[in-house]
């Protein structure tokens, strides 16, 4: 099995041997996205590297927080902060690795030859990263609830937390795909990713942390202020549009 970006059989294979005049049919966006997404998730399922590492890293971070904060239990603002810092730093690991395999093994070059819109890679990678983050959160949030969280939020509160996680993950996924694509071409990849991504993600941290704080408090109304959902939604919209407009310039060669 090769690690190159494998396109489905419905497309004609791209390559230098094909005669010039014979243009392959243009692959519609959703077909390309589906194919790329299948590759992303398939690779991760078959040889899990990123998600287990990120999940393990988040649990380790929780342990570090216990010792650093010198507390057995956190609640309210502090709990919200601990949770989001953990998720954010785990995301940094995922972003660093996002384009590495494609860059090194030639998958990017293969994709560039394909007769499809280049936005397909943006959508596929962003959605792939979103799925990885969701998988990590399935592990990290219960671990956090078990290990460090003092109060026990209700199901409704968890539901609202899920909504915040979805919005925040979308933002992280979009920014992460852009920064990952930028960083993969540099020589100092691992340094550049956190340096660039963290300032860009601060509005996400603000919205998510502020939103989660009342959910994890011991007393008081356990509901998210709509304002923070609005902030996260606006952020996702702006960065979605930016990524859509600019991504092509990042992967062309």
């Amino acid at each position: 099995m090769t690690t190159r970006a494998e396109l489905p059989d419905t497309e004609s294979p791209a390559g230098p041997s094909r005669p010039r005049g014979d243009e392959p049919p243009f692959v519609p966006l959703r077909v390309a996205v589906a194919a790329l997404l299948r590759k992303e998730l398939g690779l991760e399922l078959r040889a899990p590297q990123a998600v287990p590492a990120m999940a393990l890293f988040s649990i380790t971070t929780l342990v570090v927080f216990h010792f650093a904060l010198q507390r057995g239990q956190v609640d309210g603002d502090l709990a919200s902060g601990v949770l989001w810092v953990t998720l954010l730093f785990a995301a940094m690991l995922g972003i660093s690795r996002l384009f590495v395999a494609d860059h090194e093994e030639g998958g990017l070059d293969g994709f560039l030859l394909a007769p499809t819109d280049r936005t397909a890679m943006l959508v596929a990678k962003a959605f792939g990263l979103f799925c990885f983050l969701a998988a990590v959160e399935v592990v990290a949030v219960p671990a956090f609830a078990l290990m460090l969280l003092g109060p026990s939020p209700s199901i409704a509160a968890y539901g609202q937390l899920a909504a915040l996680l979805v919005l925040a993950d979308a933002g992280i996924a979009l920014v992460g795909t852009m920064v990952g694509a930028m960083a993969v071409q540099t020589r100092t990849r691992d340094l550049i990713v956190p340096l660039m991504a963290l300032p860009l993600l601060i509005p996400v941290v603000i919205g998510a942390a502020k939103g989660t704080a009342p959910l994890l408090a011991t007393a008081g109304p356990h509901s998210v202020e709509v304002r923070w959902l609005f902030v996260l939604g606006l952020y996702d919209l702006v960065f979605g549009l930016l990524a859509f407009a600019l991504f092509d310039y990042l992967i062309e060669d």
Partner: protein
Amino acid sequence: MLYGTRLRALSIATLVTMTAALALAFFYAPMDADQGFMQKIFYIHVPLGIVALCGFVWGGINGIQHLRTRDPKYDLRSYVAIHLSLVLGAGVLITGSIWARASWGHWWVWDEPTLVSFLIVFLLYATYQPMRFSIEDREKQARYASVFAVTAGAFVPLNFIAVRLAQAYTHPRVFATADGGLPAKMQVPFYLSLLGMALLYVTLWRYEMASKNTSWQLRALRRKLAGDDAVPPVGRTAAPTLPSS
């Protein structure tokens, strides 16, 4: 395109405007009832901040132009704009810190949302030059830098909204700004200072553009006169190069 043509007029305009603004600030504007004399820092700190942010956005606009036209001159313009804004931004943070120390006794406070947002933006743009330096291929470096400039330029207003929302209902605004409640006698020196800072930015920007242009023109001239061997090869650099060299 020549960048040095209007430099003399611009620098004179800057000198006159800034002198007038600062003179008015110290001799005409009334003493602030709350903060006393240290409020005078406001007359350079805030205009410096506003101009630095506009400079970042201007860098982003040039980035868009570069991506659209692939003309390397836009990349140079974007680079100089961001570089200059970064230097002014350092000034904003330092003067803001001094003001915070004078007001609150701490060298840094989280209460002032504009200063905090500015720190975040500064930290982001501080990665611009290292990122450029770490990409060796010239054309790719320019292209990625432009994407960064556009993204970061769009990020600036978004960041300010988010940070302001985060602190709006928890901390009262510490420093008086131009947004409201500025008496007329304070507004005149403030707006004059803002104009002066903008002129200063344009002057310095043209200064640096002219200098870089001259540098590359000299290099091209040397190559034409003395042959390719006389010109030292361009090493790895974060700064953009012009094709005439």
